[in-house]
């Protein structure tokens, strides 16, 4: 499936194993590059931010590399942005995982820990899309101990039940963020990525959320 698409910049903040995302993009025929350079992030046409590790160590690494400001600028300039797992949580203001550490604050709300069931949640869970947008419901692969609690319900694009409902996808203007791993979610995940890749590109002028 060769797609006519601009290069996707995958943000590397020195923690992550990016092989899975790279392999998935290769399979979809998308062009990608890996970058930890703020100027390249600002100039990107499309950004994927896969997060791994702990909230605190991620934010520290982002700040050390001045990637926090670059990500905020890219999002403010309208660049299509996909946050995955911890890369979703990073967009919010704070996390119970690392009290006192500020998140990127692109979206209002906090990240909290599951209080019931085995933690982390590991496995395939149902993602129920709200409304009839481009997002499709289905089963996706999760590994998470924490989940995002957005202040604004209107940005919640899908929910998932793990001893209670939580926001598994948020979407606001050019920002899309998912708690699951589309790159590990088989066909459903590949279709999700492909639809995101085919979505609108930066128009250079629109404001973010």
């Amino acid at each position, binding site marked *: 499936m060769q797609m006519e698409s601009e290069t996707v910049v995958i943000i590397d903040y020195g923690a992550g*194993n990016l*092989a*899975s995302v790279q392999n998935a993009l290769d399979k979809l025929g998308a062009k990608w590059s890996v970058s930890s350079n703020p100027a390249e992030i600002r100039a990107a046409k499309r950004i994927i931010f896969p997060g791994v590790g702990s909230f605190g160590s991620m934010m520290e690494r982002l700040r050390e590399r001045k990637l926090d400001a670059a990500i905020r600028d890219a999002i403010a300039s309208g660049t299509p942005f996909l946050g995955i797992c911890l890369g979703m949580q990073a967009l919010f203001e704070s996390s119970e995982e690392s009290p006192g550490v500020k998140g990127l604050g692109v979206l209002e709300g906090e990240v909290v820990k599951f209080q019931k069931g085995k933690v982390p949640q590991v496995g395939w869970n149902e993602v129920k899309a709200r409304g009839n947008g481009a997002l499709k419901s289905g089963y996706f*692969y999760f590994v998470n101990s924490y989940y995002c609690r957005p202040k604004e319900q209107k940005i919640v694009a899908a929910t998932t039940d793990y001893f209670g409902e939580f926001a598994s996808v948020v979407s606001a203007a050019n920002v899309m963020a998912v708690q699951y791993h589309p790159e590990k979610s088989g066909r459903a995940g590949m279709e999700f990525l492909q639809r995101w890749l085919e979505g609108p590109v930066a128009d250079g002028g629109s404001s973010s959320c």
Partner: protein
Amino acid sequence: MLTKRIIPCLDVNAGRVVKGVNFIQLRDAGDPAELGRRYSEEGADELVFLDITASSDNRQTVRDMVRNVAREIFIPFTVGGGIRTVQDVQAILRAGADKVSLNTAAVENPKLVEQVAQEFGKQCVVVAIDAKRNGKSWNVFVKGGRQDTGLDALAWAEQVQELGAGEILLTSMDRDGTRAGYDLELTRAVSGRLNIPVIASGGAGSLESLADVFSRGNADAALAASIFHDKNYSVQDVKRYLQEKGIAVRM
């Protein structure tokens, strides 16, 4: 609702899948990537590749295999067998595996579990426990089941959870290879004691045995090898049966 996982396990020797896997029209019946893809298409939720190569100069072969598998399948997979050091773990993860399974090395050096969890996150640390009944409890065996460590399986499971294991792969040596059903008592005991997922292994046989390990054994996932390789059932058959029994699975 989180679904129960069905995990086929493939034994790999020198980069080739061994034991019969009777998929029709396979170009290469021993190719881990091609077999992995077939299982993924059948609805497997994850895969485990267990390296059973006896020789120790096998590291590059395993890494090449992991790289090839990671390019072909887009569901999580775990690699186990012969992983001894943080460097081994790093190489396997960099090649594209999602998780590593530690067994003998964890018993010999429990700090390894802690180091790997700290370095790469708990989510990629699976500790494999080979347990064999010893009166009213179970002992932990290592070196492919040849050596009794004298450790109590429940106490060891709790200890590795503390050290940072993200999941437990729990094999009943009494049931392994028998197709007589999983050891439900062992599985239930370990699962009830822990706050991390338990993958039950050893004894998969009838469809009922798979339903039982979830409904009565409280397993979070079930691993099976020969029932899939010999084509007694497909992953789809198993999942359809579980669904009929009211067990949540990804269809």
